[in-house]
């Protein structure tokens, strides 16, 4: 896996730039541990100051330094997204493997449930749940919720992968050599799934970050915790746009664009690597 990432870094410009952008984002997250202010303290600095040497991204209407707030916000948003990704992919891999290996009736029932959840509209469902839980929502429960809504499509993909892996020659060899099913799954089949898992994780991050922002802008998430979405919500709440305090909104929106572009470039590089047919075509183009 490390080798794959190194090669991608060397040969795919999209992956390289994406990885650099994401590394910068993680540096920002790391900075949050050295913040001079606590995230919730109001009036730590003068209010509504435009960006300057002292306050790099300015200060907001609650007297908080936008730059240091942003480090907390990015950290929390990424935490929510990773929780969602872990839960969603966990369910997806498990269900995909079960229905791929067991086959037969179990597979048919599971597949039809998965197909139903794929088409289920997620935004209205999420808004319904969040508005019923309004005021009770924490960042952790938001992550769990997003994870529970985002497992169907990955699970279908893993099922297809397992089905094709099971038919390959080396599976038969392993079975005849007397390997247990669990060992075959973990040692022989899981490594094939890892690139797909990587690409899937990236799209899961994009989904979770987008939905976190949407829900927070609607005022439906945990508004007392800093996240990219809640920063935008409070910016709107204090009329940052009408009173020409653009910097309060510019910081979270800029951060969300940077994160989305970073993940998007990484996924571009990964998907090129994953599709063997276009890889062949690119080789042809290079030689002629």
């Amino acid at each position, binding site marked *: 896996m490390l080798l794959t990432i190194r090669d991608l870094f060397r040969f795919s410009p999209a992956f390289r730039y994406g990885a650099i952008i994401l590394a910068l984002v993680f540096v920002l997250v790391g900075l949050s541990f050295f913040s001079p202010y606590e995230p919730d303290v109001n009036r730590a600095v003068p209010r509504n100051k435009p960006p300057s040497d002292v306050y790099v991204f300015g200060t907001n209407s609650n007297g908080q330094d936008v730059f240091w707030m942003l480090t907390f916000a990015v950290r929390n948003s990424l935490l929510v997204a990773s929780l969602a990704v872990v839960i969603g992919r966990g369910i997806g891999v498990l269900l995909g493997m079960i229905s791929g290996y067991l086959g037969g009736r179990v597979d048919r029932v599971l597949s*039809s*449930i998965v*197909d*139903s*959840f794929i*088409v*289920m*509209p997620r*935004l*209205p*469902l999420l*808004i*319904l*749940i969040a*508005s*019923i*839980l*309004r*005021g*009770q929502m924490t960042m952790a429960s938001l992550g769990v919720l997003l994870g529970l809504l985002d497992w169907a499509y990955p699970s279908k993909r893993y099922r297809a992968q397992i089905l094709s892996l099971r038919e390959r020659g080396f599976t038969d060899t392993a079975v005849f050599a007397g390997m247990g099913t669990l060992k075959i799954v973990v040692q022989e089949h899981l490594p094939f799934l890892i690139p797909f898992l990587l690409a899937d994780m990236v799209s899961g991050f994009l989904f979770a970050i*987008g939905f976190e922002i*949407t829900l927070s*802008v*609607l*005022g*439906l998430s945990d508004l007392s915790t800093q996240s990219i979405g809640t920063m935008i919500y409070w910016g709107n709440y204090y009329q940052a746009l009408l009173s020409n305090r653009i910097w309060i909104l510019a910081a979270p*929106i800029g951060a*969300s*664009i940077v994160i*989305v*572009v970073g993940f*998007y470039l990484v996924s571009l590089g990964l998907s090129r690597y994953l*599709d063997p*047919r*276009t890889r*062949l*075509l690119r080789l*042809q183009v290079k030689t002629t």
Partner: protein
Amino acid sequence: MTLLKEFFLPRFVQWLVVIFIGVTVTFLIPRLSPVNPIDQAMTRLTSFQNRDPQATVALRESLQDLYGLNGNIFEQYINFWKRVLRGDLGPSFSSFPAKVSDLIGNSIAWTVGLLATSTILAWVLGIIFGSLAGYFPNRWWARLMESSVITVYPVPYYILSFVLLMAFTYYLPIFPLVGGGQGLPRLTLDYIGSVLFHSFLPAVSIIIGGVAFRFIVSKALTTSERSSDYVQYAEMAAIPKRKILISYIIRNTMLPQVTDLGLSLGTIFEGALITEVVFGYPGLGNTLYNAVNSSDYNLIMGITLLSIVGIATASLLVDLSYPLFDPRVRYR
């Protein structure tokens, strides 16, 4: 008969399963939550205004009836289904006597008109540009299109729509700021013109995003199709490139594209939340936004159910139309 049994029946059953799961999930969500939505709604409704007590009691009863909190959970479930099948979704909380179905009915035409047109337009344009750029990847216009799409695509939609709004209503005041049309809704040229005029900017913002996405998808599909043996054979046989592209490649990439079109037409019923809020367009998305702001669960629930049915039906129709687009599906 076998056609009916092997082709229609499984797909129809799948449709029923989707709707069954969707309605069940919508039924269970308020019951699994630790919050009592009725008490919450009652406090919110009665805290800022004086209502006459009878109306309050009636509201409480209708809330209880709506959440079907009379009887045990099984009876509640049956009653919920009865109401859903009758299409009676109860009163809205925020504008009390008005029915949810009426509120949805008022806004649905706006949304469907705007979204259906712009989704289909974006789909067609995206396929044309994307497959051209995929088939002739080394021409200058293909490179220009691809690099401009790659810059536009990752820009979040709310930024794009907001920039359009600022640019064309504030700095260059060409288009109106809010609304769906001017004057009385009548079938006159004036009114239709004003509707088109009002929905131009929202439509453009949806089309830009949609074309960029469709471009990327259809370019990828065309690129992988181009390396197929049959295309190389056709090129050796000196069939005109235009013909190869239109009747061979595009036709072969049609299946996933039609799926996507069907599914995105199905999502119309949840409304374009951000578009409609940013442009102040009086559609379903705006209704949903107002419902969220006033915690009108009933209305949110109605829109959720509507979008579940919409998307399930769309995917059923897409499934049924596959054989029309791809003869290979017929023999499965």
